[in-house]
C-alpha cells in the first residue's frame, strides 16, 4: 500500500486488502490461484486477458452440459472468482500507454510469463516504477529470472518431476508416479501471497517498491528440504516408499467394502495400536495380540503380515463407519475421500470449504474458499469469474478514469479486443 492509499482508507470492519489495486497478468493456475486469495480478501484484481490468445484455462474442461465455450470453463471459473477482466491486445503499439496508466493506479502488478515477456512490452519493473515508485511487482516462473534455464518451457506436472516429488511418490517395486495434477502449482501460491503481502508492507513503510522474483522450482524445494539435507549431509538418496512410514505400523491405506474404498490408518504410538487392537478384538484375543505385533519394532519387522491381516478385517467394513469407530477408539484414521466425498465431508461442510457462485453462462458452480478463517476480517467470494472482456468499460472508465473519448479511441484502434 502506498501513502496515497492510506489516506483514502477508512478504518473499521472490512477486508485486509480493501483498497489494494492489483493489475494481474497471471494465467493458467499458479498465478490465478495466488491472485484469487488477494481477491477473496478484498483486493480489486483486474485480469488482463487477450481475445486472440485466451489463457489455457479458458479452454479447459469441465464444461457445464459438456458444451465448451470461452466463458464456460469450470476450471477457469474456480480460480478467477472475485476478479474483474479486461481484454487488451498487448502487441498493439498503444497497449503500453494504457498499461502504464493502470500501473499508476495499481499497488501490485502480478505476472507469470516466461521471463522477459513484460520487458518485451517495455513494461518491466524498471519502467513501471518510473510511473509508480512504490509499486510492488510479483513475477513467478518455473525456474526464476536469469540463469541458463530461465526460459525452459514446462508446466506443473513437469515441475513435480524436476523438483524431485515424483521420485518420492509411488511403490518401491513399481515406477514412480506423479503427485496428482499440476501439484506444484498449488504449493507455490501460499508462499507467493505471503511474499506479496510482505512486499506491500515494506513498500508502505519505506515508500520504495520492490520486484519479487519467485522461482517455482526453488519455492517447491522447501516442501522436501529435509530430503535435500539428507543428501547434503548423509549422501542418501531418498526414494518412494509406497505408504510406509519409519515411525509407524500399521501405516497405509486399507481396502474397505464397496468399489475402490480405502481407509488411511497410521499407528505411531502404543495408544494408537491398543485402540486398534481393542476395536478388532474386544475380547482381547486373536491375531492383534500375537507377540509378533506387540511392539512397534516387531510390527515393523512383520509389517507385510500385519497389513495382510488388517486388510482382511477392514475389507468388510464400510469406510465411513470404520473411520468413526477407529477415531472414537483414538486411532488416527481417515477416509480416502474422492472428489464427491469432499463435497459430502462433514468437516469441509462445517468449514464452508465449497461455495457456490452464480455464473451467467455456467450457472451455479462450486469453488473452494481459503483454508483460513480470520476472526475480524474474513474473506469471501462474492462474484463469479469474469466473462472475457466483461469489465473493459467499468475498469477503464470508473476505476482508471478514462474519458469516454479516450475509451472510444482505444476501442476503435483495437487496443481493447
Amino acid at each position: 500500500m502506498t501513502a496515497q492509499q492510506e489516506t483514502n482508507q477508512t478504518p473499521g470492519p472490512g477486508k485486509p486488502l480493501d483498497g489494494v489495486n492489483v493489475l494481474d497478468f497471471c494465467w493458467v493456475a499458479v498465478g490465478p490461484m495466488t491472485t484469487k486469495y488477494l481477491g477473496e480478501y478484498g483486493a480489486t484484481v483486474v485480469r488482463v486477458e487477450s481475445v486472440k490468445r485466451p489463457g489455457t484455462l479458458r479452454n479447459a474442461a469441465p464444461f457445464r452440459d459438456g458444451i465448451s465455450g470461452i466463458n464456460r470453463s469450470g476450471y477457469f471459473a474456480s480460480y478467477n472468482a472475485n476478479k474483474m477482466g479486461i481484454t487488451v491486445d498487448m502487441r498493439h503499439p498503444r497497449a503500453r500507454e494504457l498499461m502504464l496508466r493502470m500501473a499508476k493506479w495499481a499497488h501490485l502488478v502480478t505476472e507469470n510469463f516466461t521471463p522477459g515477456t513484460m520487458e518485451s512490452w517495455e513494461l518491466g519493473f524498471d519502467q513501471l516504477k518510473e510511473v509508480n515508485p512504490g509499486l510492488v511487482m510479483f513475477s513467478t516462473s518455473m525456474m526464476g529470472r536469469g540463469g541458463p534455464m530461465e526460459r525452459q518451457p514446462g508446466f506443473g506436472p513437469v515441475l513435480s518431476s524436476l523438483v524431485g516429488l515424483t521420485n518420492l511418490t509411488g511403490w518401491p517395486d513399481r515406477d514412480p508416479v506423479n503427485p496428482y495434477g499440476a501439484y506444484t502449482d498449488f504449493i507455490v501460491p501460499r508462499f507467493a501471497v505471503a511474499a506479496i503481502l510482505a512486499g506491500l508492507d515494506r513498500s508502505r513503510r519505506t515508500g520504495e517498491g520492490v520486484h519479487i522474483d519467485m522461482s517455482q522450482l526453488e519455492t517447491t524445494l522447501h516442501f522436501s528440504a529435509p530430503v535435500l539435507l539428507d543428501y547434503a549431509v548423509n549422501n542418501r538418496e531418498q526414494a518412494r516408499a509406497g505408504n510406509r512410514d519409519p515411525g509407524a505400523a500399521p501405516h497405509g491405506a486399507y481396502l474397505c467394502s464397496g468399489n475402490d474404498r480405502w481407509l488411511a490408518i497410521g499407528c505411531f504410538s502404543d495408544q494408537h495400536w491398543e485402540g486398534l487392537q481393542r476395536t478388532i478384538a474386544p475380547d482381547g484375543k486373536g491375531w492383534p495380540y500375537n507377540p509378533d505385533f506387540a511392539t512397534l519394532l516387531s510390527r515393523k519387522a512383520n509389517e507385510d503380515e500385519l497389513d495382510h491381516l488388517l486388510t482382511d478385517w477392514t475389507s468388510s467394513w464400510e469406510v465411513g463407519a470404520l473411520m468413526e469407530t477407529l477415531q472414537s477408539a483414538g486411532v488416527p484414521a481417515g477416509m480416502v475421500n474422492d472428489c464427491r466425498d469432499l463435497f459430502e465431508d462433514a468437516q469441509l461442510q462445517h468449514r464452508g470449504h465449497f461455495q457456490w457462485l452464480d455464473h451467467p453462462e455456467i450457472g451455479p458452480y462450486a469453488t473452494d474458499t481459503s483454508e483460513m478463517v480470520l476472526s475480524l476480517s474474513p474473506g469471501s467470494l462474492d462474484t463469479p469469474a469474469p466473462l472475457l472482456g466483461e469489465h473493459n468499460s467499468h475498469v477503464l472508465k470508473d476505476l482508471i478514469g478514462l474519458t469516454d473519448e479516450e475509451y472510444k479511441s482505444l476501442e476503435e484502434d483495437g487496443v481493447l479486443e
Partner: protein
Amino acid sequence: MPGAQGGIDFLLEPYRVLDLTDERGLLAGKILADMGADVLQVEPLGGSPARNVGPFHGDDPQPEKSLFWWAYAANKRSITLNLEHKDGQELLKKLVAKADFLIESFSPGYLEGLGLGYEKLAEINPKLVMVSITPFGQDGPYSNYQATDIVGMALGGFMYLTGDDDRAPVRISFPHFYLHGGAAGATAAMLAHTYRVTSGQGQYVDVSCQQAVAKTLAHAPQIWDIEGAILKRQGVYRQTSGENRVRINWPCKDGYVNYMVQGGTVAYSTRALLDWMKEDKFDTADLDAVDWEKMGYGAITPELMAQLGGPLGDFFKGHTRAELVQGSLDRRILLFPVATPSALQGHPQLEARGYFREIEHPELGETVQYPGAFIKSGDGRDIAGVYRRPPLIGEHNVQVYQEEMGLSSSELETLKRSGVI
C-alpha cells in the same frame, strides 16, 4: 540484521514472531523468518518434539541432529519455556506484549486450558495476530480427530487421485499434510497483519490443513460438480480426455524421465524424438506416418499409446537420464528428468542463481548446504533467505530473558531450578 550486507533489507525485518508450533506448524514461522522476521521458537523443556523427526545427521538420532528440525528451524532463535508452569505462563505473556505474531499448532483448546487463549493474550496485546494451525480447524465434527500425515492426505482428497489404479492410493513418501497447513499459516499471518496495518487491530486466525490439501486438486472437484465425474488415479499416465491417457513417466537406464507424447503446436517435439530414435536404428515408419501436426490435445487414443509405448520405452531404456536430458535440450524435445536429490544438488539453474547456501554448524565443526531463498528481488539481490543455523535447545535463553527482557541471572537460575526454562 540478515539483509544489511546486500544493500536492501529483508522484507519483514521490523517484526517479531513467537513460534509455539511443533512439527505440525514449523514451516509457517520459517517462511516469515526467511523474509527477515525475528522468529523466537518457544520450545518445551528438553526441546521441540520436531527434533525427534528424522532423518538425522550421521543417522545419529539426537535432538540437535534432526534434519527435519534443521530444515524448518533455520533462521529462528530458540528459547525454552514450560507453558504448564505459572511462571512460564507469565513469561509468555510478557513476550506476547512485545510480539507482532504468535503461531501455534496445539490441539484445539489446549492454550485456552492454560489461560493462554486468544482472548487472554489480546487483553495484553490487542494488536497481536495469533495463528492456529490444526489438522481440521478449531471446531467441527473432526476437530478432535487423531490426525497424521496419511490421514490428512486421505481426507484432503489427494490420495484418491495419486498412485497406480490397481493398488491402494498413495501419499507422497515425504509428509506434506502439515507443510500445506504451515505454508497457509504464513499466508494467514500476513493477511491478518495487513489488516492490522490499516485498522490497528490484531485478530485470531484458524487454519485447516485438510482444506489446504483440498485446494491442491486443480479442477478435480469442479469435474465432479459440473460433469458429475469422479477422477481416479492414473499411475504413470495422465488423463487427457475421456478414456484417453498418455504415459508421462518412463524408466531409462539409470532412473526415470518425464516425457509426454504430444501433437499440435508441439508436434516438433515428437518428430524430433522419432528422428533421434531412427539414429538408434528404431523402425519408426508407422509413427512417422501419424499426422502429429493435426493431433489435438487429448486426441491420442489408447491404441496409438499402445503402439508408441513399446518402441519409446525401449529407446528410453537404452539411454541414461543425463543423455536423454542433454539430447532433448539439443533437439528441442520436451523431455525432463525425474530428479533425485543428487541431480538437484548440481542443478545448473540452481547453481547459477546461487540457491543453495553454506551455513556453518560450529557445534559440529561443519558447514552444511541449505536450500535457500524462495524469493529474490528481480535484480538478483537477497530480500529473503537462509542466514542463521537452526538453534540449539534454548540457545537464546540468556539473550532473550536476560538481555532483552531484563531478568537477573539469579532469576534465570530460579526459573531453571524450578523447571520453567
